[in-house]
């Protein structure tokens, strides 16, 4: 049984310019102790989707889903107190900016023991012992001393380690990491990714890694979901995705990476991601897609079969060539 089941999750925001769909019918099925990555550019709705799952969106957001189930429990009908027992305990999250996601007014120790007190009901001595144990686990030197440090006294990498310690404090079964290394330097990024993978293996957690960095995806994830403008355009195991992408967007994105190109001029994707007011009528990628036909511009595609990575495309790619492609256009 999958640990997390999401079917057709949509998030719309009430804005001054009308309704804005930030996440458009995405589905995620995550098995226990699996590493899944959600990849996409800014504005693709990858963060909003997990924030909706964690119940962290403001009141202007409307979240709808056909199925939203964690470990067999239906999260749409569950009561608020029950939900609070799951979130932060069995399902925890790490945020992008370690410097801003910790409260600057409280010590690291306070913020760490808070979770232990609320979710596990530990007494003070137990809290302290466990907090030191956790800081040791995430590789912070002199953990007893660090408990009384404020976030501004620690570096970005250390703060991110504290965030990870808070997230894993209750031994969660699902850990969501939202761009955990984007704000960090390369050598620190390598340390944090290694730490996350080590913890994932030791504790058998499922790990959802949200990122825009294809390099991080290639080196950590087992299965990848690609998002574009709020829609899920493709999902595949990592090796298949990099070797044989099925959606033209994935293909174009991979081609535009400097490390995968040999020519001086990169094959870039023309144009920009559509915003709230310039969403095309048909396929959302059609204005930037060089395979686009009239059908793509008029009719939104439906998700393809599993062997095509559920690619949201009228002509999903097989070995880099579109299938069922009309003859006259090709000529």
């Amino acid at each position, binding site marked *: 049984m999958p640990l997390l089941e999401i079917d057709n999750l949509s998030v719309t925001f009430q804005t001054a310019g009308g309704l804005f769909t930030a996440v458009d019918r995405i589905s995620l099925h995550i098995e226990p102790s699996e590493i899944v990555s959600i990849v996409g*550019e*800014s504005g693709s709705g990858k963060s909003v989707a997990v924030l909706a799952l964690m119940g962290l969106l403001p009141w202007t957001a409307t979240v709808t889903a056909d199925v939203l189930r964690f470990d067999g429990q239906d999260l749409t009908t569950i009561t608020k107190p029950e939900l609070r027992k799951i979130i932060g305990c069995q399902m925890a999250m790490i945020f992008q900016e370690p410097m801003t996601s910790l409260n600057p007014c409280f010590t690291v120790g306070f913020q760490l023991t808070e979770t232990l007190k609320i979710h596990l009901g530990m007494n003070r001595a137990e809290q302290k012992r466990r907090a030191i144990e956790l800081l040791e686990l995430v590789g912070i030197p002199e953990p007893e001393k660090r408990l009384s440090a404020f976030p501004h006294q620690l*570096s970005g*990498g*250390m703060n991110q380690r504290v965030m990870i310690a808070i997230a894993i404090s209750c031994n969660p079964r699902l850990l969501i990491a939202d761009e955990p290394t984007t704000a960090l*330097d*390369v*050598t*620190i*990024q*390598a*340390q944090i*990714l*290694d730490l996350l993978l080590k913890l994932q293996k030791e504790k058998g957690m499922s790990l959802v890694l949200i990122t*825009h*960095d*294809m*390099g*991080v*995806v*290639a*080196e950590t994830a087992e299965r990848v979901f690609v998002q574009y403008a709020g829609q899920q355009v493709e999902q595949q195991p*990592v*090796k298949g995705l*990099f*070797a044989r992408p099925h959606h033209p967007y994935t293909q*174009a*994105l*991979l081609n*535009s*990476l*400097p*490390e*995968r*190109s040999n020519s*001086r*001029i*990169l*094959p*870039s*994707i*023309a144009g*920009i*991601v559509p915003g709230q007011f310039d969403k095309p009528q048909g396929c959302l990628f059609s204005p*930037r897609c060089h395979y686009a036909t009239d059908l793509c511009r008029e009719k939104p595609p439906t998700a393809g079969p599993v062997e095509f990575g559920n690619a949201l495309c009228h002509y999903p790619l097989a070995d880099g060539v579109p299938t069922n492609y009309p003859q006259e256009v090709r000529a």
Partner: protein
Amino acid sequence: MKGDVVLTAKDLTRHYHVDRGTFRKPAVLKALDGATFTLAKGRTLAVVGESGCGKSTLARLVTMIEKPTSGTLNIGGIDITSADKGTLMGLHKTVQIVFQDPYGSLNPRQKIGHALEEPLLVNTTMGKKERRDAALKIINLVGLRPEHYDRYPHMFSGGQRQRIAVARALMLNPNIVVLDEPVSALDVSIQAQILNLIVSLQEQFDLAYLFISHDLSVVKHIADEVMVMYLGKPVESASRDTLFTKPHHPYTRALLSATPVADPFRVKERIVLHGELPSPIAPPSGCTFHPRCPSMTDICKEKAPETREIDGCRVACYHPKIYSS
């Protein structure tokens, strides 16, 4: 002509005095400590390093925003440390900069046309019509449309703003352009567009680029020469091919192995560095990299290594990796 040296820096150093309160002596922060390099027409020198390694200080010195504490900086045959004010004014035109964050580097109340014309207004005697024509020409050159002349920065996307920033840097026909992390705030698909623009402009105008970045895959794509910095000191500089195939310095090798590569089939050696960047106010003794270095010995703690040349690489290390040919 392509390959002509336009800028020579020798032992370029910049120290800052940091106040530490009433009762303590101000500390000396060695933001940049002895950088030697040249820039040539039509060539790109990339400077790589983590935050706090002095990349941006280098950019400020090369653009003459700040003067070096010691060392020489020679731009177009003129030594800027001894040049008078008038000469410097002229030199400012030849070195331009593109900043990292296109949201912060454009004045939100200034129309694009005005922002582009401002360098001309300050530095040249061009008339209104001439300035407008020049701005429109550049707008076209960087892939924007003439109607963008009358728009404000908020009406543009990140990629378009970076195009505007590049256009503004080119208004005075500079020889040298400093690109301070020009694509790190952009999405992958937009990053490729801007990199292409940067490359084609270089070919068109024979520009010398000082490309500052922390992203090694971008550097590998765009650079001719690469200089790796650590805590204010260049630790290794070489041509791109040498540096990426035969890195000598342990820090360069760790940096290369830590950079994620978008290829799940690659099996690679992973050198994970322990610890973090030390504070530049109290750098470690000897070689500043020694507390994190996997091949550290006693001599590294005592004396900073001299820069020496090994197989076309300028390396500052006692124990560089030697490749048998």
